[in-house]
């Protein structure tokens, strides 16, 4: 491996590694971010109908 190859490899690898690390740091360090998160869940039509029926029943 030449010096040029080593330089390119180190620059490429460190760039994407730092970017990834910075992103993870940002995601984890923003206070209360998980509080903002809308439930990543979906209700299918049958579940919605069931929920409505339950609410009516209640």
């Amino acid at each position, binding site marked *: 491996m030449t010096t040029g*190859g080593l330089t390119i490899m180190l620059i490429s690898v460190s760039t994407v590694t730092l970017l990834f690390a910075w992103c993870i740091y940002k995601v984890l360090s923003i206070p209360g971010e998980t509080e903002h998160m809308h439930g990543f869940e979906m209700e299918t039509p049958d579940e919605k109908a069931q929920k409505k029926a339950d609410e009516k029943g209640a």
Partner: protein
Amino acid sequence: MKKPKKKQTKKALKESWSSRIGVILAVAGSAIGIGNFLRFPGQIAEFGGGAFMIAYFIAFLVLGLPLCWAEWTVGRYAGRLGFHSIPGIVTAITKRPFGKYIGALCLVIPTIVFMYFVCVQSWCLGYALNFLFGKIHFTDAHDAAVFFANFTGLENIGGSFQISWDKALPFLIVAFTANFILIYRGVAKGIEWFCKFAMPILLILALIVLGRVLTLGTPNPESAPDANISNGLGFMWNPQKTFLEAKRETTQGMQWIRQKEIVGENALIKAQSIIDQQGPEKLRLTTLTISDQLKRPKLWLAASGQIFFSLAVGFGIIATYASYLTRKDDIVLSALTATSANEFTEVSLGGLITIPAAVAFFGVSGIAGNTSLFSLGFNVLPLVFSSMPAGSFFGFLFFFLLFLGSVSACLSMLQPGIAFLEEALGFGRKGSVGTLSALMLMGTFLVAYYSFNLKALGTLDFWVGTFLIFVMSTIFIILFGWVLGVDKAFEEAHQGSALKLPKIYKPILKYLCPLFLITIFVSWLGMDVLGIGTDTLDHHIADLMGQESHTETMIVFASIATILLVTFAFITIAGKASIYKKELKKHACTNK
């Protein structure tokens, strides 16, 4: 006192599986996989590290990131209007009846890609378990090639349809069932749950394999001193590529023909001594510099294509996932994080494992012509692991990490179809999963049974996994920049955002990105498909003209018929779905 405690428990439960990290891992999981570990190293080795990485990073900034941001934004926007399927998302953006048909066409991509990708997933599982139970001991390249042909049924139709360790069928049954069990559990309890543990495990396994590969040194110092990790890394990352060329008689007269790539000082000294013996009029060394490489349109096409396919943009998957977010949820940072996770896996892990390991055992000349995805992954690498101390264990780890990556990718390909059936036909989860599994079973059977020369897989991959993705990505970026409007799109993207999009991305998204995409698409069509400059028509086009054997032609037409049938079914369902008509009526009333 009891009441608040109850509420707290409920909230804690919700947070545990609806976190930002969960969404990011789900999107990253849709992209991270086989392409990172097998396709990327092959590409970079072919074009040389320096030049390829320049083009790669430019394509990432100009094409990959903007397309991801566009898909996240478009998806969340439509989700707020109540649409979670691709036809719904496109209808919500365009507010035109044709939107649902474009969306239905886009939906064909993940559906068809799943049909063949689940087969590749079963190969990864099969190789992983064969390694784990010590059933793979290859001594040469022929052994590896015979096992692969036998395992996949490459040599005859239905060749893999036996219940046996050395056949793909049992692993396909397990993989297919596992995918549908997970998708039946739903987005949060299935996809997100799986990605939350699979992605970190995948990264840990990759780091273990990387550690082993980088400490291989020179496995056979006496018989093959040039076959070592340093030369393997040099083969991939060196900015200049040196070739030995020989003068040969061709139809166009005497020409210098490339013989082999020279990597490492020993190889260079050997090549120079051969030139001295035979004379400089017969042999010579040539060097391709970074600037020489960057002048090749094919390099730009390869780098852009790698970014494009690696990030899984254009499938409509990201838009579907993002449609479950609200206005308050950040998408700019989430998109960047998911994208950077993919880049980290590709460059820092994939770029350092596959090719260096192969070169360490077989030398640069040993893997020449074997850098394509399947050849590298299922012929060269199993042989590498067979030659390595504790190779069964490391072979298992490597193929298992590929399996984990492919499961998360397959799950992401199922969700758009599930969302569409639920939205357009009002199906419940059982109905939508049941209907989609029946459709997928037929398609997967076609790919797995008609395995001869992997013709069905190749045909579906070309027409849907490549051609249609280019078309749909172009449509997505036009929808984002021109139909939704770049100012409105920016405003939408910044809702709840933890990061601001740089203003430079406005002209990039509106002009540069579509132009770049169209240029790549046209260049790919011209150079690779129609063979302009090489006079060689892509074999997928030649296949349509019946230039192959009767069996192969029959498989090609069966595959094309499958694509057309799925397209017809989705377009018909989308056309008749009342939910899209209601949305259009609502929009018309609002305008009045």
